[in-house]
């Protein structure tokens, strides 16, 4: 199958680590006689190259979290995949997340594919000491005897400037920042090739945020892993991501290398996101976008951004714009940019 996404692979020579192709995932609910589909992920294609940090940006409830949950195969009914594929390439082998046995999938988790959750109180089991989490998550994947395993874990913690004493603590005994750094240590202890980070710094205060971001960058440099980095915070993308995709109401609307995106965004929504960043010395008021993010249960027809778009044309409410390449590494889905031919 010739995939749209493959055409945009940054380096055609090496296999991208992640290929998402025309992925659709909906929440289908039936309750007290009301059946509805919430199109949380609607026809999204993207690739992440080896060693690349791919940023996903978008407002809350734009479907970012559903997108990454679908990508890592962590969906639970009523969210289900309607169409499309998610394929990972680890050490020369290809894995289709939705076409493999559960135990196989379980075997690649953490070894190759790991996940950093939003830094909340509840990411680590509150009633068990942290060492148990390390044991449960990593021991089976590392194939070491116990003593070597714990040596390795302690080494890893020290390398990340964490006191190995955290292993004997309960999650509630650690501060928010410590907890998040421990979670990151847990996610990286098996040196995975692909790491998904979902708003890893959102719940932290600014100083801690900077530490955690620096830590993530270091890890990426050390391990050479690919990252799928999700946050609504554009300033974080500016410092961390190599490439950024903008998600609006379940769809990808623009994607480009970070410098290109911040200097020459084309989609009116991206332009708005970039323009709303504070700049030193700039005292003009930030314009806020009129209207609210659309309901995914009942999205606007055509381009989902058109009710809030300053450039909206007739066609925008009728046709869905497709992702079109402006340059090999810059894609956008907007009739105002690509001309009014769908």
């Amino acid at each position, binding site marked *: 199958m010739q995939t749209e996404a493959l055409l945009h692979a940054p380096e055609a020579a090496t296999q991208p680590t992640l290929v998402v192709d025309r992925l659709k995932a909906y929440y289908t609910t039936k309750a007290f006689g009301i059946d509805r589909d919430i199109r949380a992920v609607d026809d999204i294609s993207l690739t992440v190259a080896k060693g690349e940090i791919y940023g996903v940006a978008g407002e809350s409830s734009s479907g970012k979290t559903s997108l990454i949950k679908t990508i890592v195969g962590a969906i639970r009914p009523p969210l289900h995949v309607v169409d499309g594929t998610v394929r990972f390439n680890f050490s020369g082998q290809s894995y289709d997340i939705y076409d493999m046995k559960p135990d196989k999938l379980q075997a690649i988790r953490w070894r190759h594919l*790991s*996940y950093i959750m939003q830094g909340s109180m*509840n990411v680590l089991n*509150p009633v*068990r000491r942290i060492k148990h989490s390390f044991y449960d998550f990593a021991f089976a994947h590392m194939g070491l005897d116990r003593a070597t395993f714990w040596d390795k874990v302690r080494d890893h913690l020290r390398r990340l400037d964490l006191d190995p004493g955290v292993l004997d603590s309960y999650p509630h005994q650690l501060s928010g920042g410590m907890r998040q750094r421990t979670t990151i240590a847990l996610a990286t202890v098996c040196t995975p090739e692909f790491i998904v980070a979902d708003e890893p710094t959102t719940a932290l205060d600014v100083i801690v945020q900077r530490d955690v971001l620096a830590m993530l960058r270091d890890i990426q440099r050390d391990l050479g892993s690919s990252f799928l980095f999700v946050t609504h915070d554009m300033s974080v993308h500016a410092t961390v991501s190599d490439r950024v995709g903008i998600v609006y109401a379940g769809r990808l609307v623009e994607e480009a290398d970070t410098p290109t995106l911040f200097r020459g965004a084309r989609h009116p929504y991206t332009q708005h996101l970039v323009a709303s960043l504070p700049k030193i010395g700039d005292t003009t008021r930030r314009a806020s976008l009129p209207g609210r993010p659309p309901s995914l249960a009942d999205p606007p027809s055509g381009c989902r951004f058109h009710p809030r778009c300053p450039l909206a044309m007739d066609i925008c409410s009728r046709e869905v714009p497709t992702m079109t390449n402006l340059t090999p590494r810059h894609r956008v889905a907007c009739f105002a940019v690509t001309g009014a031919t769908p």
Partner: protein
Amino acid sequence: MAAYMIFVARRFGQLLLVVFLGISATFFISHMTPVDPVAESITAITNFGKSDPEAIDLMRKTLTELYGLQGNLFEQYVTFWSRLIRGDFGPSLSAFPTPVSQIIFRALPWTVGLMISATLISFLLGNTLGALAGYYRKSRILKILSLGLIGLQPIPYYVLAFILLILFGFVWPVLPITGGYEMNADLTLSFTLVLDIVRHSILPAMALVLVGAGSWLTGMRALTSNIVTEDYVTFAELGGVGSTRILRSYVVRNAIVPQLTGLAMSLGAIFNGTVITEIVFGYPGIGTLLINAVHAGDYSLVLGLASLSIIGVAIAVFLIDILSPLLDPRIKAE
């Protein structure tokens, strides 16, 4: 640890309050009677033939003292408490002059044994099935099992025990339906005796388990289906942690503390059920003793049983209450 001690102290205060309220209620209920217990008892005794007026007068005096009925209401209340603290409930009327406390302590092991084993079985069974049903939501076997147990849950203990009695006493008589052991059993400790006691406890225990397990199941299933959406479960799933491990160490481990609190709160109801079930099967515990005491008009025995039930249940509640936080490190260190 200091926080835990404060917690224990507060629970202990609650224990004292329960005992105070319960015992006071017992006292005032027993004193609002339009019937004079002394006169009642005398009638009961004189029914057997003796009716010497002088003897009756003496008897009245003795009984009034034995029942702690001299003086005004407040004095009687004080007497009641002071006797209670000494564990002295007076002599039983129906088994005169055996002290009430002795009769009660003879029946107590039966009730405690039946209650602990039945509660343990129904708690384990209900919680295990509930956790499985909440985690593996599609399993048909679990759905049918849950439906069965949940359907039995609203049926009163008496009615369910009665149905078992009919089923195993008349329809398919394979199990002993009455008593705690064979009538003429040799009561020295032996394997046969233990087997006999176990056989006699099967039906009462079954009644208690069948009624009790459903509510643990419902509670655990609801807790489980809430906990599986918690971040730490999702995270463990993403970490490739096996599902049995997730269920045991992540889901059940977190749900068990609220379930234990629930156990403490429903202990009074479970005690009621045990006592009622004993009555149906003529099991030689507190329940049967209570009914016999009522029929025999044994004032001090009824009062002693009511008081002791309240104290016993309150202490059990207290113990579960202070032990369950030990499973949750957050409360200990708070």
